[in-house]
């Protein structure tokens, strides 16, 4: 059974990845970089934590990886959000919103931003 910290990290990672890919397709390294940048370093995914998560999401049909040429000219595996992934985004947002509201009610935890 997964620990609560692992489940929270995985769940938040799924939401972060889906939200990023909703804007544009990105490759793995760019995803980890943007998550770190846009969360001010609060959420950090390295190679070991990012790719198993991406592969799970791909197997579920939420994202689809395709080898494409990057601006640098190198072939990179870009992840695209699928229709199923788009459909997951709204309920995930809702669940996390409820999660933070619940924490706020019980412990006064509020959004930083």
């Amino acid at each position, binding site marked *: 059974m997964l620990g609560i910290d692992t*489940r929270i990290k995985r769940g938040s990672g799924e939401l972060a990845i889906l939200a990023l890919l909703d804007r544009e397709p990105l490759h*793995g*390294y760019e995803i980890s*970089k943007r998550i770190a940048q846009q969360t001010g370093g609060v959420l950090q995914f*390295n*190679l070991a934590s990012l790719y*198993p998560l991406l*592969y799970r999401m791909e197997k579920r049909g939420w994202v689809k990886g395709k080898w494409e040429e990057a601006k640098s000219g190198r072939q990179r595996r870009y992840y695209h959000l699928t229709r*199923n992934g788009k459909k*997951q985004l709204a309920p995930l947002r809702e669940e996390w919103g409820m999660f933070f509201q619940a924490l706020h009610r019980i412990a006064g935890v509020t959004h930083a931003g």
Partner: protein
Amino acid sequence: MPDNSTYLRERLGRLGIETRREDEIVRELGEHLEDHAAALEARGVTSGAAAREALDSVSDWPGLRHEIVSAETEETIMNYRTKVLWLPALCAITLSNGIVALMQIFGRPPDSYWLSASGKSMQVLSAFIVPWLISQSVVGAIAAHWSRRAGGTVRYQLLAALSPAIVLLGLFLLVIPSSILLHKQALHNIRLSAFMIVTLTWVLLPALPLLIGAAPFLRKPQAQS
């Protein structure tokens, strides 16, 4: 930065998945390490130190291997569609047919509806079991709820709920006409009107309670953990 694939293969070992997929994973992880090292070099770290630091960013290679294999095999065994459609549909079909079989085994006679043909003789219009039709609402509810809990969209929830009727429709539309074509003598026994009535009785009528049962559960999917 030197080619990472040999290093990655040494560290990860054989993943025991399809070779092409394994090669793709090694290549993708190698690209990530290369980007990581390049980013460090851009910050002034020497080439050799950047490469080492990128490789050292993974502290638990057996753990990573386990996570990758788990991610790759878990969903291969049971992919999204299996969870949200095929399993609830199989459950609904089994339940639906199981209930009708039990009713027949325990001697529940079908409710027959009669039609007077040209006012002279009486012909059976259709025969079906009313309690079975009522039970279909529960079957539809179970299938739709299961699909929704597994993360199925409304379309999958609907398909899972209606699957017992869809299977029978497929049976009537494909098997009966093809058997008529293959065995021409069947033409004498199966008339179009009878075929339509049977389809109405065993497909459209059960579809209605299936749909009614499913209706309260046809909502946006619950996100998967």
